[in-house]
């Protein structure tokens, strides 16, 4: 028996509750609270120094690199999930099978770990450089 779409009803209910809460509170705060708009109150930093320049200054490419690395290792972790779900079953089957499966995953991890070691040795994650 597979999961049916109806089994996901709790998720949908939760989603609707979350979105509903946000929408409701936003409407409520907008209509309930008093509004006094002055120029000073609409400043970005009401009680700081006056803001200068553009909010959209280009950020360092290093953030982007970290994001790329995140996505790559995200994909790796996704591959581990179905393996991990089955692993206890393989262990219960026989030690030889479990060992083989463990080695297979180890090879996969080793390949990505090599890449990771390379990235670290290259000093790409070194922030101050």
């Amino acid at each position: 028996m597979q999961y049916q779409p109806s089994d996901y009803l709790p998720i949908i209910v939760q989603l609707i509750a979350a979105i509903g809460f946000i929408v409701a509170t936003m409407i409520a705060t907008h209509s309930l609270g008093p509004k006094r708009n002055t120029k000073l109150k609409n400043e970005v930093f009401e009680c700081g120094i006056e803001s200068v320049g553009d909010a959209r200054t280009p950020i360092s490419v290093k953030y982007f690199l970290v994001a790329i690395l995140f996505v790559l290792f995200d994909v790796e972790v996704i591959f581990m999930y179905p393996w991990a779900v089955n692993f206890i079953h393989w262990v219960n089957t026989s030690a030889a099978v479990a060992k083989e499966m463990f080695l297979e995953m180890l090879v996969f991890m080793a390949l990505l770990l090599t890449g990771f070691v390379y990235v670290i040795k290259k000093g790409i994650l070194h922030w101050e450089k």
Partner: protein
Amino acid sequence: MNSIIALSLFGIANLFLGFLNNRKILLPATLAFVLVALGLNLADWNQEYLWFNNMLRTNNLSVNFASVILVATFLVVAVSRGFGDDEEHTHPAEYYAIMLFSVVGAIMMVTFENLIMLFVGLEILSVSMYILTGTDKRNLRSNEAALKYFLMGAFATGILLFGIALIYGATGSFNIHGIEALVLTAAGGSAPALLYIGIVMVIIGLLFKVSAAPFHFWTPDVYEGAPAIFTAFMSTVVKTAGFAALFRLLGGAFTGVYGTWIYILYFLTMLTLIIGNITAVYQQSFKRMLAYSSISHAGYLMLTATAKVAHTQSSILFYSLAYSVATISAFAVLMVVAETKESNAEKTNENFDIFNGLAKNNPLLAFVLTVSMLSLAGIPLTAGFWGKFFIFSDAFQRGIVVPLVVAVLMSAVGIYYYFKAIISAYFKEGDVPAIELKPIYKITLIVTTLLTIVLGIAPDLVKSIF
């Protein structure tokens, strides 16, 4: 199969050799790695194996294709000369590592038995190529070429994957022999439209990778923008691997529904030949001319891939070898001449006039260029002539007259633009200082030239093996 594992490990080894801060050992190490892989590959000769639950198949055909790919890789690595001494801007360890990884992908495209392996191999090859195209980070054209190639290539891969999914939907199998059997039964009765659309989409995805018209628009820009050494790599290894995959699908898995794709491919063959050759005539840049010429060579190879006769595979192999060797020597000459001009603080544009007066001070380079151009044009006594001859005779045997006539006419057009380079080298006034060639460079150029001539005189030396 063992060569795939070995190349993956060698790629990693290369990556970490880069940390030794010794650029000198990378070139010999990579050459040795490629030779070992070639040896492992040849060890599979005359054996038919299926690997890893029918994922890969090694037989003589795959060994031959992989050998052509590895020989081309060896020659490209040899003319790369360790990427010079510019410590800050070139990183040979990464380049060589990615080249070795891309060869893993290329060999998988040759040996695949399962469409998933085709997809993963193609993806490894493509991703490596996107990176290698953009390696010249200071050059805007290189950046643009890499981005363009990436966007177009990702789209083409998507179409290929969609096609594989549709074929799976129609036949329930990824295995190409399984698909072949199901396609044969389906062809008799009522095959679902799913199957036909899937087949056409897979063919489109592969035709994009081998830059056949009308999927060729990326080729000139990418070939021009990428560093010349990687253009040489791209136009030889990717093309050979792409045609090997296309041949294995058209000649095997998709044969049952021959009628679906054969007329489309005839039409595209003629289109590719005409667009490639006619546009090449108008090019000022030598590199762009070679890009269009590679499109036109894709046309010739398509002609034989569609002509299904007994020895089609040996024609494709011979043509790929002849074309690869000639292309690599042409790019090698271009690279060394452009570099010399650059070091003399001249503005280089990689146009034809870069070769003006080359023969005066550099008779060897001019000769190498001449032989490679003659071979690409298909003049007798060069390997290129026999390559074209085998292809045309295959097409004639099969009786595909109209594309054959177009191909013959277009190869006549080809002679015109290839001779432009030779005329520049011998008859135009110009000043190229005598170029000091490194020994490995000289040896490689002599080997490629000799190979072209020997294969032109005695094609059976190789043809009988294939």
